[in-house]
């Protein structure tokens, strides 16, 4: 019974256990290690040393019964060593005191879950908004800068520097590791949800799922959204965001034919959508609406729900869809909403009305380089028979599209104009 595993088996088992712990608890361990000192970078370094130690030691001794506690004990010792090396005098004494206070937890089986507090620190208004999502992905989930940089279309070196700077800011500015009080919660929560949604959207932009790092990003974002909605179940918008993401995820695989061609929503086979995910999303939207606090994610979730219902039942519900876009527009004022609303409006009142509605945003400079704007214009112009103008709009949409399959789809539409 007590046979020792072979060295290969031992190493393999150690690696599997370490991977599982990293997957399950990385953010929990970082949050716990950094909560007192607010030094996220030092916590991450100590934790990565602890993982390296685990891979060296576990194969020789069997994996510990509580690997999280083992890692935490080692990481904490590394942190204390590092603090001793780095500093001397009063500063060091204060720092060591803070670190020692945490030690008592390690003996216990349950590590307190401070991931939510860590997320609020990462998405703090004092930190530049565009780094919130990358920071959460790194600190809570342990993704490396290279993976994050690709997903956010930026250089790995630049992403690495920005992450380091943001962590320094948390430490130096004394950004708190805490969940904000009730009055502040809704506003602060919004930045956390935005960061999660940004991560999801970046993952979503790899429809072929060919890029493993990106595909994982939607899974990671779903993991974070589930975590936040478990920890804050009474916040309607966290439920709305999770519902919205599940609706989108349910259609992931159906967006491409087997040969990799783009399939728009209107041409997808609803039977191939993931029914379990859709059911979960619908239940979440129900729960959210019972809380009587409307918000943008619930509205976007409701829009997804309306699209699913229309395609499944075959009955048009464009009036409801336009209404939802109106409400969303009132909250966000976003030109992106105006574009989607115009396409729904075209179904309800015809393409001329829809094109008129786009006039409101025609002078917005950001749209000049926004593919969906040109694709929507091209589609509407085609429908009123303005083929030359439609062709030029398609040309812009094609030039701005980065997904080759969508580019081919737009090129087919453009070619059909002259056919």
């Amino acid at each position, binding site marked *: 019974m007590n046979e020792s595993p072979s060295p290969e088996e031992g190493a393999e088992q150690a690696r599997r256990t370490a991977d599982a712990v990293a997957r399950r608890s990385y953010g929990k361990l970082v949050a716990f290690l950094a909560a007192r000192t607010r030094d996220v970078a030092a916590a991450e370094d100590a934790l990565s040393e602890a993982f390296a130690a685990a891979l060296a030691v576990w194969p020789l001794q069997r994996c510990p019964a509580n690997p999280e506690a083992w890692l935490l004990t080692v990481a904490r010792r590394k942190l204390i060593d590092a603090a001793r090396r780095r500093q001397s005098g009063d500063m060091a004494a204060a720092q060591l005191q803070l670190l020692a206070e945490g030690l008592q937890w390690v003996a216990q089986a349950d590590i307190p879950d401070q991931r939510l507090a860590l997320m609020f620190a990462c998405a703090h208004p004092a930190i530049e908004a565009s780094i919130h999502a990358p920071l959460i992905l790194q600190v809570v989930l342990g993704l490396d800068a290279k993976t994050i940089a690709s997903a956010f279309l930026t250089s790995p070196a630049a992403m690495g520097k920005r992450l380091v700077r943001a962590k320094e800011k948390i430490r130096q500015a004394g950004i708190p590791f805490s969940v904000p009080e009730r009055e502040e919660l809704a506003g602060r929560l919004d930045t956390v949800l935005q960061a999660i949604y940004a991560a999801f959207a970046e993952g979503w932009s790899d429809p072929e799922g060919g890029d493993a790092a990106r595909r994982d990003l939607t899974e990671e974002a779903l993991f974070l959204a589930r975590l936040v909605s478990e920890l804050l179940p009474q916040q309607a918008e966290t439920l709305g965001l999770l519902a919205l993401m599940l609706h989108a995820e349910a259609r992931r695989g159906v967006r491409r034919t087997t040969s990799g061609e783009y399939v728009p929503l209107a041409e997808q086979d609803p039977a191939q959508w993931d029914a379990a995910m859709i059911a979960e999303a619908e239940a979440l939207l129900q729960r959210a609406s019972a809380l009587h606090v409307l918000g943008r994610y619930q509205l976007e979730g409701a829009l997804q729900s309306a699209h699913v219902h229309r395609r499944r039942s075959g009955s048009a519900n464009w009036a409801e869809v336009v209404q939802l876009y109106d409400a969303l527009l009132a909250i966000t004022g976003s030109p992106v909403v105006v574009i989607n609303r115009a396409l729904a409006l075209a179904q309800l009142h015809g393409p001329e009305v829809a094109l008129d509605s786009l006039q409101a945003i025609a002078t917005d400079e950001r749209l000049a380089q926004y593919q969906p704007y040109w694709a929507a214009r091209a589609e509407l112009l085609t429908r009123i028979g303005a083929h030359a103008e439609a062709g030029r709009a398609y040309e812009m949409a094609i030039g701005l599209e980065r997904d080759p399959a969508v580019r*081919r789809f737009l090129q087919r539409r453009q070619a059909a104009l002259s056919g």
Partner: protein
Amino acid sequence: MSYILMTYVNEAGWFALSKAEQEQGVAAYKAYAEALTKAGVLLGSNRLQGGSTATTVRISHGKPQVLDGPYVDSKEQLGGYFIIDVADLDAAIAWAARCPAAGHGVVEVRPLWPMPA
């Protein structure tokens, strides 16, 4: 800042395409150049002839040495470039991602050395 986007593509891939696919490919590059122009960022661009037409020259021991073929003999060859003027590296990367070459090859983004005024 000015950047050059250099496209590296597998030349054999081009000849393996059907005529219709080649036309679609050329049209995608044309649309891309058009979008760069409309955005007011394009400073210049060219498509190069195939790597087999390349000749390399270097002075070795005081004498010119001329060799047939491209400098780097790899499957993916420099096929063209776009020089653009944009706010920063992230903007350049965003344009590189839209370049059709990013879909079937690689786009290298390099800042140009600033010219003294």
